[in-house]
């Protein structure tokens, strides 16, 4: 049992509409989600992440493909027979029931004895720290509290997998931060597999064991947050997660998985190659803004590249510098952490030199 994947999506497609209006919300996608994993589906709106979640929940049925839950194909099973529960974006709490009744609903529908339901509801209320509000109507509690009730309601029947559909998007920034930590704690305490859908890359990076980045109905890359951020294999992934500089260039030589790329305006850059990829000719090199820095004005000659400062944006923790390289067209962004009581070092219109950290650049597969 332990070596079985919690959820396995095999070549699943979901096509809405017919004929010329047919639209593949999920397009021949396969992915395996491990036991006890915090797995995130990340992508822009309309990428198919919510449809994929609804296919697992049973609110939609796949046009083709298999959905395995602990090895059993559940693709055609109605939602009320699937041992998975959902936390909805809108929470969908039952307005005619109290907090406790909402949490106990799943167990009640399963026909569990009253004593067991009561004990479990009490346990859940404690888990989400809502004991004192058990008798309230759901319309009488705040958004953050509704969120907790929705979580407790979905966790109460001890599902094999918990599905979360952008559950934090309605909360304000501070509350969202608290709930992120809360969710991680709940996942660790319950040991249940979480499948989390979000369009917020920060949420995905901070909470997940693994992330799947989706676009146009397909999963482009699956990996740990570190892999996704540090080693994006796809231009869309590199662009969607964090900020990235893209530099076009030509491979000059390759050695031990490192290519020397002539990017023209930005000089020769040593960039890591994705495994099993040996390009010749045109490639794109990606470089994160925090892996580049401005040279001291007196050392301009030794810099990787030079350009004109277009814009300086102060962020508190760091400052973003938007530069146009010396060819006059290629944009380049870099980010430096701010030091205590530091005055602004550069101003708009300054000519600046940029140096790059070693091992920071990567070649994209496409």
């Amino acid at each position, binding site marked *: 049992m332990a070596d079985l994947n919690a959820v396995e999506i095999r070549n699943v497609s979901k096509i809405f509409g017919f004929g010329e209006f047919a639209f593949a919300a999920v397009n021949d996608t396969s992915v395996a989600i491990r036991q006890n994993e915090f797995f995130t589906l990340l992508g822009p709106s309309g990428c198919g992440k919510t449809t994929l979640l609804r296919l697992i929940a049973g609110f939609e049925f796949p046009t083709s493909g298999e959905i395995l839950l602990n090895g059993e194909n559940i693709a055609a099973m109605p939602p*009320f027979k699937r041992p998975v529960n*959902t936390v909805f974006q*809108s929470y*969908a709490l039952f307005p005619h029931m109290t907090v406790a009744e909402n949490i106990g*609903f799943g167990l009640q529908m399963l026909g569990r004895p009253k004593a067991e339901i009561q004990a479990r509801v009490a346990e859940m209320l404690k888990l989400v720290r809502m004991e004192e509000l058990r008798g309230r*109507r759901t319309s009488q509690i705040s958004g953050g509290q509704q969120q907790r009730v929705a979580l407790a309601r979905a966790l109460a*029947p001890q599902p094999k997998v918990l599905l979360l559909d952008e559950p934090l998007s309605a909360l304000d920034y501070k509350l969202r931060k608290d709930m992120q930590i809360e969710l991680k704690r709940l996942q660790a305490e319950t040991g249940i597999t979480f499948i989390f859908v979000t369009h917020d890359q920060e949420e995905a990076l901070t909470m997940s064991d693994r992330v799947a980045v989706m676009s146009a109905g397909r999963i482009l890359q699956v990996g740990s947050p570190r892999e996704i951020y540090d080693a994006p294999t796809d231009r869309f992934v590199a662009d969607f997660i964090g900020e990235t500089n893209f530099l076009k260039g030509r491979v000059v030589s390759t050695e031990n998985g490192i290519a020397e790329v002539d990017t023209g305006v930005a000089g020769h850059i040593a960039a890591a190659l994705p495994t099993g990829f040996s390009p010749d000719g045109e490639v794109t090199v990606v470089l994160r803004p925090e892996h580049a820095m401005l040279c001291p004005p007196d050392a301009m000659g030794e810099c990787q590249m030079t350009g004109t400062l277009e814009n300086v944006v102060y962020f508190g923790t760091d400052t973003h510098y938007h530069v146009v390289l010396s060819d006059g067209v290629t944009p380049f962004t870099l980010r430096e952490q701010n030091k205590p009581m530091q005055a602004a070092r550069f101003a708009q219109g300054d000519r600046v030199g940029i140096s790059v950290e070693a091992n920071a650049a990567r070649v994209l597969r496409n």
Partner: protein
Amino acid sequence: MARQFSVRRQTGFTAIAMMCFFALYLPIAVLVVYAFNAGTSLNTWEGFSLQWFVKAFENQQVIEASIRSLQIAVVAALVATAAATMAALATTRTEPYRGLTLKYAFINQPLMIPEIVTAVALLIFFSRIKVWTGYSGLGYLIAAHTAFCIPFAYLPIRARLENMDLTLERAAADLYATPWKTFRYVTLPLLWPGILAGLMLAFVISLDDVVITEFVKSAGQDTLPTYMLGQLRRAITPEMNAISTLFLLLSICIVTVFFFVNKKRI
């Protein structure tokens, strides 16, 4: 700061509003007042008396017509509301499809067709059935009332369903509720105010009907409104006012009960 446009501040707003209220309620007020007239006149006040109410309660025809009206209204409202609830569920708990608008039109048909046309059609249709079956009881009136009550019951139920988030039913299904249990524990409790509104509306509409009843009824099947209509052909006394006042009281009671029942929920 520019003041927001408000229709209430326009010249003549209060005057027009008052005129509308007078036009609506003054005749009714006069009717109620003369129900308590001691004399037989409808426009000359001769002192306070409850005699016309006593007369109405002693009038066997009035009692019978009232009971018949209530029988028809209760059965017709219940059956119509049940049918309307099913129709509303079928037309809202589904993805929109071609032909759905046509179905709305069919369900609301009695609202569009002139009542007199329906009445004549039913008269001819039922007279044929009466010949075939030999049955001439209240069933015809009940069937006719049920039919024209359905759209009135349907409208508030459908409005309630359209405001109800489909995600709630999805959440119930997600929490192991079968379709029947979802209906029983989530849809129905939330729909209840709509159903109650539909029931009240159907009841009042049935109680009030003259045209179709007049055409469909057999001899000796007067309802309260058709009985009153019949009385108009003779010398009219404040007894009519008394009956009307009681009728008014009943409908005020229904509306009040409904208001409080609805307020208690959510």
